[in-house]
């Protein structure tokens, strides 16, 4: 049971990573990041069965933080869109060195 959960977790994580690496839409990137967080959450829950309840406590923590982060992140995306008229990250390059 744990093995299957971990495999699903790994698949989700890789989907998230590939999404972050290949896509340029801020919203999709955001979602991919959430996907990675939740992949990690899944492995926490699954592995908590082997050890103790700490893993599950962590998951609650992660969800809280992710919610806060989503709020802040989406707010930033909205103001980016307002400012630049796009959420395509390739177009946002004013911070180049």
């Amino acid at each position, binding site marked *: 049971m744990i093995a299957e959960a971990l495999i699903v977790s790994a698949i989700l994580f890789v989907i998230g990573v590939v999404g972050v690496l290949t896509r340029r839409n801020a919203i999709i990137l955001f979602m991919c990041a959430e996907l990675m967080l939740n992949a990690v959450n899944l492995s926490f829950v699954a592995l908590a069965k082997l050890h103790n309840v700490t893993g599950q406590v962590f998951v609650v923590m992660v969800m809280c933080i992710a919610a806060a982060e989503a709020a802040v992140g989406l707010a930033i995306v909205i103001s980016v869109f307002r400012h630049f008229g796009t959420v395509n990250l390739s177009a*946002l390059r*004013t*911070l*180049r*060195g």
Partner: protein
Amino acid sequence: MMPVLFAALQDAAVTAPAPALRAGLTVPLALLVLLPLLGFVINGAIALAGPDSVLRRGGTDSTTARNPVVTVVGPGVLLASFAVAVSIFLKMRSLGAGAAGPLDAPLVVTFARWMPVGNLAIDWSLQLDQLSILMALVITGIGSLIHLFSIGYMRDDASYARYFAYLNLFVAFMLVLVLGGSYPVMFVGWEGVGLASYLLIGFWFGEKANIEAGKKAFVVNRVGDFGFLVAMFLIWVTTQQLDYVGAHAALGAMAGSPVVLAIALFLFLGCAGKSAQLPLYIWLPDAMAGPTPVSALIHAATMVTAGVYLVARAAPIFAGAPEASLVVTAVGALTAVFAATIALRQWDIKKVLAYSTVSQLGYMFMAVGSGAYTAGVFHLVTHAFFKALLFLGAGSVIHAMHHAYHQTHRRDDPQDLRNMGGLAKFMPATAVAMTLATLAIAGVPPLSGFFSKDEILSSLFARAQGSPLASASLLGIPGHTVLYAAYGLGILTALLTAVYMTRMLMLTFGGSNRTGEAEQGALHEAPGIMTAPVLVLALLTVIGGWLNLPALIPIGPVGTLDAWLAPVTGASAARLGGTAHLDHNTELLLVGIAVVVGLVGILFGVLRYRAPIADKAHSPEDTGLLANAYRVDGMVDALIVRPFRGLADVILGRGVETGIDRAFSAGGTMLIRTAAFMGEKLQDGDVGKYAWMLAAGALALIAALTLS
């Protein structure tokens, strides 16, 4: 330091024939060298601490001229050293000279360990034998006279103390050179006299030409020193010994082998440098930039004869390599005639004497090269007498000329023969003394130069007729051809010598005066302290021949020097010369030829240079080949100095220097620029790229952690 030294003196390890002899001579031997060194320390301290400002502030506002302490100490230590040398000599003499006496083997006194490294053990050791004490007598004796002369010559010089300090230093090193008991100790003296020579050539360092002359002497000598060093390395590699006794015994057993030949040739390269032989003679004429007494002592009487001494000292090596001995003879002969031709047309009185010295050194090398060691050393001694006399006489002349010009505030060359003439009237004593020296160097009997030159020429002829050396060959040329040629060149040189010396004498003292109307009144004989040494040398010049009279002319004890030096060089001389000797009539004929040649030269000189000439200001620039010494300096400049400089420019200037410039300045900015370029490409604001790098980094980390 001192107790150690005394302890070393007491139990000095010695390989001596007689313990009693050793005990009596250890301390005098040390004193002989240490006395001039003490003089150097005292005079040097006065020069540094006293008001000899030149060394410290580069001005001449204050002065050590006529400092009484220096006047006493400078010549005093030399006279004391001479007295010690005489006492040692008398003691040796009382023990009986010649072979099979108690002095058959040299007395080697070891004072201290110097370099004990593995099985290399070099000691501070002095070797007393018939040759080294003879050299010590000449050095301290002539040295004393020249020190006394210097009191007068240098009395108004601001750097009086420095002068005597250097002169004392020179004598100390020269004594180390001749008394040293091994090649390394000799090398210390060898380099030391080179240093003293450098310091004294550039003594008046206010003028750039003087410094450059000193530098030239140093650099040219370095070429010779390279030969000396390589010879020492070879001796060590071959025999594992460096002291004369051991090394000579070991090398003598290997006579004829290529390594002995190589050692002899490298040693001779050293001799050619120090004794100004072809092709390394170029420094000596320039060395005349120093004060004239220095030219007399260092660049005529003593230091430049060190090469002759070295060949005589290393006689067992040269006797084991006849080809090398033939090289020595040939180089000596060529140098003798080459320098003599240049001397024919020099206008500077000191340059005439300088080329004459080179030429006479050639004679000595002809002698020692042919295995006639006694003849070479004999000529060394007599040459020291008459050449020191000539230089000191020239010094007196220059002194007088300089003062005359000084009084009338005229700036003209006090050393140029064209400005002299008729000086015999003003300085008769100097004129008489220099005439005697000129007759001696021209080989007029019964003056000293006649006997020594004649001995060289006749022994060359005798060896050419039949001897082991004549049977050897040099690059396919049979030995007797080389020796006959050397004899011929020797006769030619004798003729040239008589001509150029008569010319110098005539232009200086004969005819009418060209110094100038106003100056004539100021010309006068040098003070007594200067003429006295000149007259003593004149006496020695006259009687010097009695040191070694030939059997042909038995007007006194015959062959004294031969007998005296027999324990040192006799075996080697026999090895090269065999039983070569001339029959009575041949010898008489040879003497006759030599004398006639000398007289013809003098006669020619008198007739040729009787006519009045213009003074320097009214003479055209002499552009002749001889007056410019065959333009050798220009050739050396074009063939060696400039290519070398060019090469240095390419390698050091363009290669190393620009290379370093590029690496450190241009290279530095390049590095930073490249880094900046890469950083700029990395941080272009593309978040996607950052993400990729993050992922790659994370993967790399995971990989590293998993694999380790």
